[in-house]
């Protein structure tokens, strides 16, 4: 196959491949946590809210990673403060905080006059990944996988039942902010691949696909990262062959996998549910 040949020959394509596969895996892992914690919106919020961090990093001439992580944490804390200290519900406070940061980011990006324009940050361009970006992605991947492996028990209890976790003496608040930090890292890693606007798809679509297939949390995490990586590979291949926007194609690939599972999942799929219902009604 031509794609495999090109993959062997072109270094930029290798970087794109490694980066997008890792992004698929880590977004799959973190996505499993956030959809079960009812924080899918939080992924969207953080990905948008890191924009001013990216702009400021360009202005200061440092890697955008630092600015993005700083604003990611600031957003998580800001949302927590608004929803805990007022009657405003969580989804509304997410909306208030992230749009404010995103607006600030748009203004700053305009002022920063960077070589990387707004379009690339918003929609990503995995074929333009630099070595330094790839290395950051690999490091983030290692951090996320290690955290989840080491603290799996604690993450499971606190995700399943926060009150129970607190009665075990687990620091549930810190676990929440820990997950927010990992979410920010995953988002930053995804910037180059799918861009700010579509990160949320990588976080929730593969995880939701996995959720329809299993009743075990550990299996869900593995399946979710598999679907994430698979979407990345398919998306990268198609976008390279037909010269399409990589981020968009990756997300479409993830969505198609979701639709297939949504229809054909043995337990949760609409097809078998309908068949089971009919069987009962006929009798």
């Amino acid at each position, binding site marked *: 196959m031509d794609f495999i040949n090109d993959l062997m020959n072109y270094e930029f394509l290798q970087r794109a491949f490694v980066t997008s596969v890792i992004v698929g895996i880590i977004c799959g892992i973190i996505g499993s946590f956030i959809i079960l914690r009812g924080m899918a919106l939080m992924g969207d919020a953080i990905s948008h809210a890191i924009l001013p961090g990216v702009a400021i990093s360009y202005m200061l001439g440092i890697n955008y990673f630092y600015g993005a992580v700083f604003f990611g944490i600031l957003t998580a804390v800001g949302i927590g403060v608004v929803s805990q200290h007022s009657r405003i519900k969580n989804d509304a406070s997410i909306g208030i905080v992230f749009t404010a940061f995103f607006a600030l980011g748009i203004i700053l990006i305009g002022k920063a006059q960077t070589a990387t324009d707004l379009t690339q940050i918003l929609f990503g361009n995995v074929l333009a990944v630099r070595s330094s970006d790839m290395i950051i992605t690999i490091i983030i991947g290692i951090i996320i996988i290690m955290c989840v492996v080491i603290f799996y028990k604690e993450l499971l209890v606190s995700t399943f*039942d926060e*009150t129970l976790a607190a009665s075990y003496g687990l620091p549930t608040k810190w676990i929440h902010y820990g997950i927010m930090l990992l979410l920010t890292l995953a988002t930053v890693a995804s910037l180059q691949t799918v861009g700010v606007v579509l990160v949320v798809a990588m976080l929730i679509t593969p995880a939701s696909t996995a959720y329809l297939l299993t*009743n075990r949390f550990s299996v869900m995490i593995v399946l979710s990262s598999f679907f994430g990586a698979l979407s990345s590979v398919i998306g990268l291949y198609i976008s390279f062959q037909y010269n399409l926007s990589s981020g968009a194609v990756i997300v479409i690939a993830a969505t198609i996998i979701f639709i297939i599972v949504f229809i054909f999942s043995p337990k949760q799929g609409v097809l078998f549910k309908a068949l089971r219902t009919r069987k009962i009604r006929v009798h």
Partner: protein
Amino acid sequence: MGKSIDVRDLTVSYDGNEVLQDISFSIKSGQLIGIIGPNGAGKSTLMKAMLDLIHRDHGDVRIDGKKITKMRKQIAYVPQRSNIDWDFPILVRDTVLLGTYPRLGLFRRPTKADKKWADECLDQVNMLDYRDRQIGELSGGQQQRVFLARALAQQANYFFLDEPFVGIDVTSENTIITILKALRDEGKTVFVVHHDLTKVEQYFDQLLLINKKLMKYGNVKEVMQKELMSSAYNIDFNIIQSMGGEA
């Protein structure tokens, strides 16, 4: 210091409204204690405050003379079922296995022995046949039995159950109360938040009657007095009498 639970001047407020006012009592270990009171009396809040799960304005809770935070491994808490996400991807056996986590601490994984122990706990509540079901596939009573099994898996000395009998079938209720009494007979202490007054006398040794304040603490006969109950519940307790209670 003998084995006891000592609560002193426990006060809790939400947004400036006092929900619990200066609650003090001292209970000898090894008893089955019902926490009763009308709706909104603060029964669940009392339990959470005792376990240091919500902010206390002031007050002190000691178990065997030690602070709660030092006693976590000896305490098994079963929160109200209504807070659970029933679609969570977890099987019955993995839910019970959660009970072994506090003793394992950080880093250690459940071993074969832990899994076997979890199965034994599941067997005690007659739910072993359901071990491979997802928790949402069970009835309310079965779910409650699974959560009791999880608490048993903790091998605790103190049990706190918040409204375990709400919305469950008679078989499950009987299974649960039998196990709670057996725990008591082994010398464990069991607190139960309870709102159905009809069975109070068959179930508990001691009662804590609260309505924001501690109205009365004592054995069941002492607490189930008509005058006392009427003032706590603000209703005429002849109704309770006709329901089979001895108030």
